[in-house]
């Protein structure tokens, strides 16, 4: 374990926090999305889709997606039943 790994998850510590872009299947549309973050490019945020887009991922996604490629939009979040209700909420 390295000295600088204080309270980092084990796996991220092992590979120094670097993670390659991934392809995620979107079950709602049966198409594929690139992961919206890329630690390989410093200074980007999850919303900087244009900046982080990796051409290789794009080509892989295009080849894999039978119903077309969705480059924007999000998967519908999974909700863990009624217990996923948020507390401390006020409706106005």
């Amino acid at each position: 374990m390295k000295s600088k790994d204080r309270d980092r998850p084990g796996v991220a510590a092992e590979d120094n926090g670097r993670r390659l872009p991934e392809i995620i299947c979107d079950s709602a549309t049966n198409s594929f999305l690139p992961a919206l973050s890329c630690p390989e490019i410093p200074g980007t945020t999850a919303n900087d889709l244009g900046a982080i887009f990796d051409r290789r991922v794009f080509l892989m996604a295009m080849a894999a997606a039978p119903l077309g490629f969705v480059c924007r939009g999000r998967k519908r979040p999974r909700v863990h039943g009624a217990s996923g209700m948020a507390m401390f909420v006020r409706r106005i």
Partner: protein
Amino acid sequence: MARTDVFVCELCPKNCRITEGHSGDCKSRIVLDGELRAITYGRPCAIHVDPVEKKPLFHFLPGTRILSLAAAGCNLHCKFCQNWTISQVAPEDLRSVDLPPEKVVEAALAQQCLSVAYTYTDPVIFYEYTLETSKLAREKRLRNVTVTAGYINRAPMELLCRVTDASNTDLKAFSDTFYKELCDASLKPVLDGMVIMKERGVWLEVTNLVVPTFNDDLEMIRKMCRWMLANLGPDTPLHFSRFYPMYKMRNLPPTPVEFLMKARAEALEIGLRYVYVGNVLGTGAENTYCPSDGTLLIKRVGYSIPENNLVNGSCPKCGLKIAGVWGNEEQRP
């Protein structure tokens, strides 16, 4: 329900106003079908067994294993975040596993852990999951630990304190400007939160990450230590942590070790009794010494403990009770 309804999430001081289909600033609380949902409930993105020293907690069950879990997202956006690959993304963009609270407790017991840590990102954004798991953990005699930036409103903090045994809270800088410019947050709620924890009997340790050119200011550090002394007491451990280039601050060098040692000396001089330097090996500043006679009480090397000389939580030479949670016996200032 009209789809134009606006929900105010009153969990953290950002008090996000959220409409149907949108999330709050933390990305993990979303209005779906007319209800605000905590979408990471029961879905951690990281789960590991760590030594408790890694949190870091140095005065809480030393040498024990702690089941540590996180869910995606964060209500802060620190430009130096070391766990940003999980904290600065939306939950749906990250792999997670289905692990309801009862399974967390089962896993902790199976792994011979004495406690569960809600950590890596921030338990504030997976509040409901933390709360429910903590309740079940307590029933099984497990302790609960939060590792947090402490950016939370008073009411949820008070409720969480009922099931929290210990916390390592980040005090990122004693500067509101720092919080605003580097973390997208503010200082006061963090200070208030720490005082609440102390009042409610949560064992508290504080971490200050020293970022070169931003908060490596000895005068600011002195002010922070004086505030801690006055509001949290001299027995609250303080960890100065070494910065490494991360996320959006890869242009900065690591914190010079000499500065961290100087900050530690200042904090001890001001009157804090237990001051540590972390993310650095071999300085001796991760050991616990008796504040009365300087006896080495706990020797630490990385996350291991080659020596623990405490006798029933006391100094073996002078008998001074050392503040902390050492096992069956708890000694709180």
